[in-house]
């Protein structure tokens, strides 16, 4: 068995799992965080995307042991019961999620992009989302939603909201 301890959505958690457990299985089965989905299990579809140490990764391609000691952000850590994250707000307002299965992954890819770049070009957004497949063909609205989220986030940083916003579970 492999013992792992990691910070998930700001909370430290431990588990002892068989070595062949992926990070995705660890999150879904051990920690009951079912937001990340199993879509293709080979790193093509991006439904399992989570953010590890600030970078978007396919959690189906990472062993739980590799995530030991790291900081993991899942879709469950993006909002609080009080507030939606601006990305969630923008996706909701744009109607960018249809069946929703790809959604958690897309939102986290968008988060990883916007953490680095608050004013991404359409091409940069396309590049950041190219690892997230949507078969409902909703990409246009997703790109609009990311642009809208970027606008909301820029506004926020301009108004110097320095007080810690609880909904932004930055790892």
């Amino acid at each position: 068995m492999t013992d792992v301890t990691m910070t998930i959505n700001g909370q430290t958690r431990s588990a002892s799992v068989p070595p062949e457990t992926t990070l995705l299985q660890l999150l879904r089965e051990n920690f009951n965080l079912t937001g990340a989905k199993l879509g293709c299990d080979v790193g093509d579809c991006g439904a399992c995307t989570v953010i590890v140490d600030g970078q978007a990764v396919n959690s189906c391609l990472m062993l739980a042991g590799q995530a030991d000691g790291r900081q993991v952000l899942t879709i469950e850590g993006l909002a609080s019961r009080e507030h939606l994250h601006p990305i969630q707000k923008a996706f909701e307002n744009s109607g960018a999620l249809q069946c929703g299965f790809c959604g958690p992954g897309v939102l986290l890819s968008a988060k990883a992009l916007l953490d680095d770049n608050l004013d991404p070009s359409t091409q940069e957004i396309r590049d950041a989302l190219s690892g997230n497949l949507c078969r409902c063909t909703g990409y246009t609205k997703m790109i609009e939603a990311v642009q809208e989220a970027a606008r909301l986030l820029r506004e926020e940083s301009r108004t110097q909201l320095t007080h810690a916003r609880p909904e932004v579970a930055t790892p």
Partner: protein
Amino acid sequence: MKAFGYVSAKDVAHAVALLGEHGAKAKILAGGTDLLVELKHAVHNPEIIVDISRLSELKTIAVADDGLHIGALATHGDIMNSSIIRDMFPAMVDAAHSIGAAQTRNLGTLGGNLVTCVPSMDSGPALIALEALVTVASSAGRRQMPLGELFVSPRKTSLKPGDLLVDIVIAKQNLSKPAAFEKFGLRKGQALALVNVGAAFFIDKGNFLCPRIALGAVAPTVIRAPKAEAYLEGRKISAEAMAEAGRIAATEAKPISDFRASADYRRDLVAVLVKRALASAQARAAAKQKELAA
């Protein structure tokens, strides 16, 4: 996945010792983007996984006296974001950017891409064009060899059980060499190369000097195009010469037909991509000169 043992190496010496101890029963886990897929599909059934993904000493990207060193564990994302590589070796940034998508680029490593040794690997052509060397560690010590000698056949390298690829080196004399990478896939994102090409040459009074052309996905491993190189050597730089080199390189490619593309289509792509890669290397050289002048 089937059950296996797992050990996370603490440093290179520990990794080498573990690999020496377990030999062929062990598999090395770096980025995992290929290995985990193969484990899920039971392509390999190792007894133990030696996880080297924490070895920060293998993630360094730095210039030393002998040239540019890229640690084998540098991810494609690290390469794209490295100011050193952006400045000295932008062709490698293009190559890294063309691999998979953000999520896989953040996990997948340069060393992993090379040792997985698929014919369409995107890291290969640009490095071969710049005659990169690789450093391999084992319990017998370290040895260095040209990257080309690493590749044997599809998914087969010259590494023996117990060997660990640690470092990729671009020799100092080749660092200023203008180089470019071109790729054509069926989609703009997340696509394997139908053909990829690396090209590099010095400019000597308007002539090609030491031109190097590397072709990917058109032979069992990444290959050079020696006839096209010989044609360009000493020749005046022109669009016509680049196009002719492309045509010659197309005759040197040995592509297969598969469900992605026919051999003929791939040969045509070689001609086009070689021409483009040469032109883009030249443009890069011109831009650099302008920058230096300014």
